[in-house]
């Protein structure tokens, strides 16, 4: 484990194939779990309505739940999976960062899909979950491999921008350098921005001068 949760360099793990397109964040973590004021405790309710027959509630023990037998995460072969393979437009819908927290806290470090919704994509980098975008053809190929009787292991190397399979077959992925470097180093976004505090103050003064109506005290 990394000591810095924001850092991602290389990860090797079993792949869980979630063969659905347009998975929305309401499915990743349903609304009833958003009542929590904490940042932790979401993992056990990841995909709650797909994983369990009964309706989930905060604090309901896992031992009292009835698993949906044919949901991929309930298949014992994938019980230790840490790489989620998904289809296009993954995590569309609500901006809830709880979706990223739930995936991480369940044990995923990486999601591979042909495309992601924008807000989720951003949220992932702010938490050390790596979203890997491969082509449709590559994702198809990985689904073919990952759904065979034996689960597959993949290594995701952020430095090399490469997903590597067991027989050393590799899939290169694109990622912008900025996000890549931030994640490789596990840098704190707020700290990076506050290095520019003087520039923000200077901008703010100019902005106020040009648009004084934007700076009226709300309660005045």
């Amino acid at each position, binding site marked *: 484990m990394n000591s810095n949760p924001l850092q991602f360099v290389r990860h090797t793990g079993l792949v869980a194939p979630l063969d659905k397109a347009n998975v929305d964040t309401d499915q990743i973590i349903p609304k009833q779990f958003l009542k929590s004021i904490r940042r932790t405790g979401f993992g056990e309710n990841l995909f709650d309505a797909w994983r369990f027959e009964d309706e989930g509630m905060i604090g309901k023990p896992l031992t009292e739940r009835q698993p949906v037998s044919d949901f991929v995460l309930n298949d014992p072969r994938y019980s230790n999976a840490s790489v989620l393979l998904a289809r296009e437009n993954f995590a569309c819908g609500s901006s809830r960062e709880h979706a990223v927290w739930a995936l991480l806290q369940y044990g995923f470090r990486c999601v591979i899909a042909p495309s992601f919704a924008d807000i989720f994509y951003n949220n992932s980098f702010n938490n050390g979950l790596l979203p890997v975008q491969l082509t449709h053809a590559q994702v198809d190929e990985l689904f073919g491999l990952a759904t065979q009787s034996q689960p597959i292991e993949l290594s995701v190397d952020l430095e090399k921008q490469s997903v590597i399979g067991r027989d050393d077959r590799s899939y290169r992925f694109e990622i912008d350098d900025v996000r890549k470097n931030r994640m490789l180093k596990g840098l704190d976004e707020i700290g990076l921005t506050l290095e520019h505090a003087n520039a923000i103050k200077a901008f703010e003064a100019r*902005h106020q001068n040009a648009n004084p109506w934007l700076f009226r005290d709300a309660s005045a």
Partner: protein
Amino acid sequence: MATLYDKIWDAHVVGQRGDGLSLLYIDRHLIHEVTSPQAFEGLRLAGRVPWRLDANLATPDHNIPTRNRGLGMAGIEDPIAKEQVVTLDDNCKSFDIQQFELLDVRQGIVHVIGPEQGAVLPGMTVVCGDSHTSTHGALGTLAHGIGTSEVEHVLATQCLVQQKSRNMRVEITGSLNQGVYAKDIILALIRAIGTAGATGHTIEYAGDAVRALSMEGRMTICNMSIEAGARAGLVAVDETTLAYVEGKPFAPKEELWNDAAASWRELKSDSDATFDSEVVLDAESLAPQVSWGTNPQLVVGIDEVIPDPASFDDEATSETAERALKYMDLHPGESLKDVSLDIVFIGSCTNARIEDLRAAAAVAKGRRVSRSLNAALVVPGSGLVKQQAESEGLDQIFINAGFEWRDPGCSMCLAMNDDRLMPRERCASTSNRNFEGRQGHLGRTHLVSPATAAASAIAGHIADVREYL
């Protein structure tokens, strides 16, 4: 040759960080109870303070009951929900952030109260930890939904770290037929371009049909931009915008108003601006729209039948459609007009403004909600919308027709509070998402306009509102 998005962007770029990303200065940060507690906790743990207090405005909306509001906090029976609302209170007090509290008449859905108060103004950059922040683009405002880490970042730095998005222009030509509303435009658009059709883009809505819309209608359209995957939705400022903003409590007054209005009149794309993609939709051709599936792309006109999943071009949509029909217990070739309902919900940041309630009340007036329904709810978007509706007698129209008249909040749009569907209940809803379980575990949602929702409540099944006008 700049687009409106380019102009607002350029006016707010503080500069680039060493890593090449831009810092975008944020004028207004709206806060609610669900996505903020972890951000405030993060500030505390790092010993940071909010950069600019008066840029923030908070209100509870997602997780509050819509009954017995007079009881205040004591009316929140769920102890976990209550803790979240109390935590917002505590955080606003300890950080000195202005909040419209539960019992304040100005409380309401965050995307209703921002424009209503003039807390959101043209040309602003606006963020909120909620994807439907895109609503505010209706005022010529660049408004992004953000995650909780970004909420904390904006609190601490007054900036959002951004890469510029691409420009998309959506032109809605012609004029709407009777019984067809802004909601029908946006549903038809998402049907046409898909739930990822605008990913990475900021959409500017233009064309005669958009110009003819009220601010409420424009908000409805911008609100659902996110359902097409867009980073934001925008409408250029015109006299409709200025007339709406003038006189709002937080809006500039007198001389400052004149200066602001002159500046805001420039908030439009240059005539020779170039867009990365363009879409044209003819308003004239639209019938009232109804969703039949489990995402907002799976929509048909009320005159059409449910399509065969195999008829979709791409495999992913076909599979999604097939799964959706199973979840919704519907079949290809079926007409939605025959589909009976259990619940009707009129509310949400998409459709809980005064104009929405007027449109629904016009249909409900003198009629009765079908006995076959389990409930029909009307949840105003804010305390002030509620007050306005009551002063116009709309509450009595709804109550006489058999609707429940509730207190403001997000309510059954996302069903975090007690307003939710029971398993397999079917709902005609004016909200924005028909995802599986969105309105309650195993619940089934049909997205419609407020007028169609009202007509459907009367009929007891999904109805063609044009027969009720």
